């Protein structure tokens, strides 16, 4: 994969282009050709930018946020727009309305989104780093290391992932940090198995034997030769895994095991909105719901697009 041939050809036909592009350039161009992947990438990047900017620009003190005079204010922009009062006599103070404490839902969704995204990224980062290390080591070293590690992974996989996360958080105590770690633990086997299978498939390649014959250590071989070659499927899986991690941390939040009140988190906001639904206060639920759906949809579209773009079987077919 390290054959980074520069794209010197100026010919535009697909087949010629592919011969001169490096793997990552090729992947990117194939990714950008798919409309659904472009859409997913657009959502993901926008969400990332918003999640970085919101905490920087808006200093939000959740524990002091309460304004009972604004209790259940309607989403003023949208209602105003629908009622046709376009002459500017409506304010946009509560674009997403206000909840039972009169808190601005627009603001809370912004901060909650940021929390969910950070939690998702952290869980996946923990799971990928631990899982890949276990997988590469057990695939390359084989023997008892392999069988012990894989039996442990089997046990973790024997639990439905959300159930295991719930149990772990129950034991460790609720909170965002424990929630993130619990979700990460449930995901470790996925990356371990993936990295292991990649390590096994390249273990006996000639270039690995060549490295061994010049005296490279196991660690160097894994780091320099096996890891880069197993990167592509791990990237695809972690993009898809981000969606899962966001959903699961939000599910823990919904069950009251994640981010604790009054701090905003999308799952917890949805759980709290349930009591407002019977009285028809739809906005308390709808905006956090749409936000989380869009976020997960973005990751899934991007992940599917990446998988197709990196799939060698599809290469050269289009």
């Amino acid at each position: 994969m390290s054959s980074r041939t520069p794209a010197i050809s100026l010919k535009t036909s697909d087949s010629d282009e592919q011969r001169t592009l490096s793997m990552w350039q090729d992947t990117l161009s194939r990714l950008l050709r798919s409309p659904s992947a472009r859409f997913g990438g657009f959502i993901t990047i926008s969400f990332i930018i918003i999640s970085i900017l919101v905490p920087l620009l808006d200093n939000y003190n959740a524990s002091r946020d309460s304004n009972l005079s604004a209790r259940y204010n309607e989403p003023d922009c949208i209602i105003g727009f629908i009622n046709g009062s376009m002459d500017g006599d409506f304010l946009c103070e509560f674009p997403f309305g206000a909840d039972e404490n009169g808190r601005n839902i627009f603001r809370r969704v912004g901060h909650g989104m940021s929390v969910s995204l950070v939690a998702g990224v952290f869980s996946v980062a923990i799971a990928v780093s631990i899982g890949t290390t276990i997988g590469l080591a057990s695939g390359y070293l084989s023997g008892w290391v392999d069988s012990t590690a894989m039996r442990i992974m089997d046990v973790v996989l024997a639990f439905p992932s959300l159930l295991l996360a719930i149990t772990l958080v129950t034991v460790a105590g609720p909170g965002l940090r424990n929630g993130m770690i619990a979700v990460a633990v449930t995901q470790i086997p996925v990356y371990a198995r993936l990295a292991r299978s990649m390590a096994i498939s390249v273990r006996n390649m000639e270039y690995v034997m060549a490295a061994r014959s010049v005296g490279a250590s196991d660690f160097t071989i894994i780091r320099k030769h096996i890891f880069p070659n197993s990167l592509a499927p791990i990237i695809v899986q972690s993009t898809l895994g981000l969606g899962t991690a966001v959903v699961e941390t939000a599910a823990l939040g919904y069950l009251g095991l994640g981010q604790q009140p009054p701090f905003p988190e999308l799952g917890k906001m949805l759980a709290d909105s349930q009591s407002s639904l019977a009285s028809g206060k739809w906005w308390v639920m709808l905006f956090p719901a749409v936000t989380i759906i869009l976020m997960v949809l973005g990751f899934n579209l991007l992940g599917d697009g990446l998988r197709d773009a990196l799939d060698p079987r599809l290469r050269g077919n289009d």
Partner: protein
Amino acid sequence: MSQYIFRRIIEAIPVVLGVSILVFLMVHLIPGDPAVALLGERATDENIDALRERWGLNEPLHEQYLIWVGNIMQGDLGNSRRGNLDISRELRNRFPATIELSLTALTIATLLGIPIGIFSAVKRNSWFDTGSMLGALLGVSIPIFVLGLLLMFFVGVELGWLPFISRLDSNISLERVTGLHTVDAIITGNWDAFVNAVSHLILPAITLMTISLAVIARITRSAMLEVLNQDYIRTARAKGLQERKVIRTHALRNALLPVVTIIGLQLGTLLSGAVLTETIFAWPGIGKWLFDSIQARDYPIVQSVTLLVAMIYVFVNLAVDILYTVIDPRVRNA
């Protein structure tokens, strides 16, 4: 084949052991005295001593584990912290509600997902294919609790079409036979109760089945597309076989193999999804029970429900693997 099945069963043993050890250790990982964790802070010394005796908490850890396993084998899962309920009896009362919900969801997801997947593959790139795959993508992207709340609000509250709390209206009485309300209603010929039970089942079942439906439709479609590219399909078409026959007898039988595995794996998704679905719709199954017990820090219940669900998951996966060898002659003769 029997050799493969035997090996697969042997391989499951360490997993079962590992799962039970992990669930056993759960109570010991909670900071403080496990006896207090199991009984609650307000337990009397007498009660604590009795519990220590029953579960051998004064013995070394590995002996405690053996005592624990022994008690479970005899159907003794212990008592709940609150109300001192017999957990195994309570589990038997609540489990049918979860079974009814999960099996309904799985059945509908399978009956809809397979035809949608087949049709999408056969009519590749048609509007139906595009539409159903977009729907499937949305289905896997929408979290269960979000879908549940949306359905509850729009169908339950705003339109008022369907009930969205519990399994039966409080004014309907139903004799308990199996614990599955719809089945009990049919057995006892209680049609009012049947209609009522079904109407309560619809929203939670749709909520729970969506992810599985989407996954089954996607897998069926991709398996079918792969099979349709095979040489033997071309041969079948070349020899002039009707397209319907090609699909039914040649493609479908081969394409459905991976689908069987996926359907089995869905049971795990359904059982953990049941925690969320039952919590949203106040469905009195083991998922809601688990949620309530977590809120009340009733660890013995959390431990028992976790163990039960994980064991079901392990055995379903084992059964699916074995079933796979039975239906696929290539695996059978390998």
